[in-house]
């Protein structure tokens, strides 16, 4: 009798992976029970015993039985839009969607050439700015200091990335310059900015700069902070890109030179694409950090999403519900950061195929 090969079923695989020995069985059972216990408690708190509607606020256990999602029901508009005027919040919502849409579209390979992507982003930012700031097309003007919530967080993130990325490429190229005084000056600048905390850079740009700059250069503090943050981002990102460039064999650039390619062509077609591929994981990392650190603008009085979360539970009715508000804000951060990381993983797979 011959034994025929039987493909392992799901059950076989589970047994092989989790229950192959007595020790493994014990470990699986222990940790499985622990995970189920945690999930059960979480569901109990967050779903089963939770109070969902703002009308039922009195049922909230003041930190007792279940979560009080009523606070989100009552205050979500404050969390999402901050101090933006209540009747005009649809503008903030559309502006926010426009930015997200532009973000998604720029992940689509069709947009990956200089002209298309710049048109896309200019259009995206113009839509955002016109909607948020108003003052044209019969929209009431809303000043930057009243922008807030998710749209402000996204705007700061997008603006910093977009200003910072080209700046980072320039910084990285300057630091690799063959003229020693350029390379060294750039090195000193990068290292100086990197050795300062982001908080102090933001504070300086928002509060100290108006004392030193001439009047016409001051602008709103939101844009000053974005410029400061972009500079900070560029210095870190420049080092990441430089790392990617250093991983390239010197022969690549030399071969391009030998073929008579100009500097711009060498950089744009040979060096940068490969450098970016090498530097992709730390770059995504840097974007994630940048997204999260937008919350630091609270120090100069902006109602980004975490600050408007604070304001949401900072009132006599909802003062007990800070855990729920933090959980909600964390969920929003998670959605964006997780999407960003997954996109990074997709890019890595895609460029890896191209490399073969």
């Amino acid at each position: 009798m011959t034994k025929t090969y039987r493909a392992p079923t799901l059950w076989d695989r589970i047994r092989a992976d989790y229950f192959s020995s007595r020790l493994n069985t014990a470990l699986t059972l222990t940790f499985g029970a622990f995970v189920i216990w945690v999930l059960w408690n979480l569901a109990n708190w967050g779903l089963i015993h939770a109070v969902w509607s703002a009308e039922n606020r009195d049922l909230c256990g003041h930190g007792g039985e279940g979560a009080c999602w009523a606070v989100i029901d009552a205050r979500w508009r404050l969390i999402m839009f901050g101090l933006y005027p209540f009747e005009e919040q649809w503008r903030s919502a559309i502006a926010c969607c426009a930015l997200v849409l532009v973000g998604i579209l720029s992940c689509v390979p069709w947009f990956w050439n200089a002209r298309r992507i710049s048109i896309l982003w200019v259009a995206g930012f113009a839509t955002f700015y016109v909607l948020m700031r108003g003052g044209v097309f019969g929209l009431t003007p809303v000043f930057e200091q009243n922008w807030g919530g998710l749209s402000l967080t996204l705007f700061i993130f997008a603006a910093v990335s977009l200003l910072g990325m080209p700046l980072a490429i320039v910084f990285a190229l300057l630091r690799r310059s063959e003229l020693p005084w350029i390379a060294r000056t750039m090195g000193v600048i990068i290292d100086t900015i990197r050795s300062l905390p982001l908080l102090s850079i933001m504070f300086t740009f928002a509060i100290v700069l108006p004392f030193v700059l001439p009047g016409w250069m001051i602008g709103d503090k939101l844009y000053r902070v974005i410029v400061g943050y972009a500079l900070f981002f560029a210095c870190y990102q420049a080092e990441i890109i430089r790392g990617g460039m250093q991983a390239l064999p010197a022969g690549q650039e030399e071969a391009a030179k030998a073929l008579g390619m100009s500097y711009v062509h060498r950089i744009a077609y040979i060096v940068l694409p490969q450098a970016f591929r090498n530097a992709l994981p730390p770059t995504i990392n840097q974007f994630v950090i940048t997204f999260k650190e937008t919350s630091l603008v609270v120090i100069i009085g902006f109602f980004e999403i975490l600050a408007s979360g604070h304001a949401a539970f900072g009132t006599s009715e909802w003062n007990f519900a800070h855990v729920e508000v933090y959980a909600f804000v964390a969920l929003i951060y998670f959605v964006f950061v997780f999407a960003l990381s997954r996109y990074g993983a997709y890019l890595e797979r895609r460029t890896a195929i191209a490399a073969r």
Partner: protein
Amino acid sequence: MKHLKTATTALGLTIAAASGAAAADSRLDAALERGKLLCSGHNGSFLGFAEVDDKGEWKGMDIDLCKGLAASMFGTSDGNLEIVPISWAQRWPALQSGDIDVVIKLSGWTHSRDTELNLAYSLPYFVGAFHVMAHAELGAESVADLDGGSICVSAGTSTERILASYLENNGIDAEVIVFEKGDEVKTAYFNGRCDGLILFAPPLAATKATSANPDAHVILPDVLALEPEAIIVPEGDSKWLDVQNWMLSSLWFAELNGITQANVDEFKANPPSAQIGKFLGATPGYGERLGLSDDWAYNLIKEVGNYGEIFARNIAEPYGLPRAMNNLYTDGGVFYPLVVD
């Protein structure tokens, strides 16, 4: 953070002093000309003083004073008041750079701020005490009863220093447990991590009022320290400072004379005395000397009510904090109006 704050403030002040000495114009004139008062808000909320309601509108005691100030200057705060959200660290540089005209942000009158930072203080409009709250089941009646126990406090605030010096001065041997954030301190206290919790009176009252079982906690009567909170304007602008002082005085004057938001029209139509007539602008004189319209106090009371109403609306009703020291002198408090003549 502290050093950064001091350094930027100092830098700002030096530059402001160098360039701004020539600017003799009062902030009052500047704001009147602009047609808008720029008043300090908050980057989040401070219970009872600056909160944001469901519609994203500011409310609270500090905000009411901003509204009152705008109404005094322009007749109504509607369209004439801009609440600029600022952080604690930002308030002095923002005042010097002109981002805001006045700081009404629960800021204590301290020696260093008054002298080194070139700030001018109005009459205090709120006297805040630091109290300790304890679990009722401990049966403690004063902070001394917590000897051998533990007290929770937020790190890096003046509260931490106040607690330490009070314990030292009174020879109380309690363990001080320090937490980084306000939410953590409260959670730790409610989870029984410590016997007592020290906070500034308004947030302490709020914490008690919004806890799961308010009766399970007692606020001990000992006053560990006091902080007089005042309105702050740049030094050397006496015209602007006068407006602040007389606005506060008017709020107390109205309360003392029983003038409220509801009956101010009656009082204006039939003033019971010549003094009140002058106060409400029925006869001229009260506003002109300050550079305001003569009926400014009427507008002020019409907009926000008298001091007692502001206190009740923002502090007493939502948080159950008794007026105590913040009463008029006639009710055992520390406040009194200046003389209207």
